[in-house]
């Protein structure tokens, strides 16, 4: 079962980026911060989420049970 915290983070990554995109575009409409200036936030956020996955990921040698076949590779390609 893919029930590790890092897999939760990986699954949440897409929706969180989508929310961030929505927030930046809303800011583009209603604040002086246009999307043309704020887009790097998305890169930073993506980087942070990936970093966080690595941080919370358990050591492969220590805690990979036989159910390893079910879980996707630890640093599988993102979206």
């Amino acid at each position, binding site marked *: *079962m*893919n*029930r590790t915290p890092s*897999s*939760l983070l*990986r*699954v*949440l*990554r*897409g*929706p*969180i*980026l*989508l*929310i*961030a*995109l*929505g*927030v*930046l*575009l*809303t800011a*583009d*409409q*209603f*604040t*002086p*911060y*246009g999307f043309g*200036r704020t887009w790097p936030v998305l890169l930073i956020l993506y980087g942070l989420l990936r970093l966080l996955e690595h941080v919370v990921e358990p050591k492969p040698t220590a805690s990979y049970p036989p159910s390893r076949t079910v879980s*996707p590779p630890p640093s599988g390609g993102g*979206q």
Partner: protein
Amino acid sequence: MRRTSLAGPVLLILIGVLFLVRNLKPELVSWELVARYWPVVLIGWGLLRVIEILYWWLTSRPLPPKGLSGGEWVLAMFICLLGAGISAAYRYAPRLPPLVIHGKTVELFGEAYDYPVSAKQAAPGVRRIKIEVPRGNTRVMGSQGSEIELSGRKTIRTFSRTLADRLDRATAVEIQVNGAEAIVRVRSDEPPLSEERSGPVTPPPARISTDLELTVPRQVSLHVSGRHGDFDILHVDGDVEIMSDRAGVRLQEIGGKVRVELRRSDIVRAVQVRGSVTISGRASDVELEEVSGPVEVSGYYSGDLRFRKLAGPLVFQSGNTELRLARLPGQLHLDLGDLNGSGIEGPIRFRARSRDVKLEDFSEELDLSVERGDLELSPGRAPLPRITAVTETGDVELVIPEGARFALEAVAERGEVTNDFGPPLAVSTERRGASLKGATGPGPAISVRTHRGSIWVRKEPAGRPTRPVEQARRLL
């Protein structure tokens, strides 16, 4: 087992509800709402997804491999493009000029809201008035009074009455008097939409045009500037300066100098100007009549140019075409194909690539050269002007009054020469062309040359009725 997300159905329901409400109660859902709040859809979608995933996680159900599939990202990008498109349309569309189809104007976006404009201000010592109207037609009339009075109408084309009201307040028309100078302008200094971005200023989603009718003390000078709109100026004794990106200009009874600078114009017309007239830019038609000072027209002109009764010199320059003359008691018409004129005082100089030229009744000196075009010259009265006329390709017809004194040399390098003047002119045929030479006594030199074409010289019987130039002189 694959979990299906709720987000897809919820999005569809939302879009359906939006369109349904728009159809049933249009006043509840405006384009402004959609144009400004569309990114909220992305946020809502993302939140829904997060809640779903957390719920699956907490209830120990299996998680999907990815939070958002590739197809869902494509859908999100599609929403972004659509939203950005609607936003841009909302921001810029009302400012687009109306579409003209078969003479009917079709406004695609927004609605027009009209506001009356009026103001009045005493201006006893004012000598100079600056008028700044970005868009709209302006009519200025000089009067005996000492007041500046304006009335007119402002049209704001946008999506909502509230926005139109706000823009109306932000673009009030005002008259400021500072000593000898007054400014009449449409104010636009405060940011029209307070919550709009402050970076590069985004103009409001509206097209504002102000049609003004101004009455000013007639002794003033005017400096008028605008971007788009026609200017009518009447009965002003001072100088008039007009600058615009796109305007039709009509001036009448101006006491001072006139200076017009335009990027684009369909017509510039000035009648009864006592000072000089300087016009530069791109225009179609130009009409100048009864100008006392020198006239200078330069730039690019594609339509009809008509000049009548110019008491000073004229200099015209447009692309490869150049025309200079000393005085024009008669009239002159120039377009892209022809130059026609009569009653012209020289020295006259004309250079063009391709024009048919027909000049009657001109004096002093004519220096004419075209690459392609027929020439028809009849100086009309003695003493004859000196004439140098050259066309590379074209026929030349020269009419000389009976009894005039001159020395003629006409050469058709490849073509015929016909002598209907008679002696003492004599034709001599060369290998491929012909020439005509002769003199009737000490007089001005007339030289006519065509590279490819024929020449016809004929005599005008004496005692012709009064020439236009004399008529014009009497009128001036």
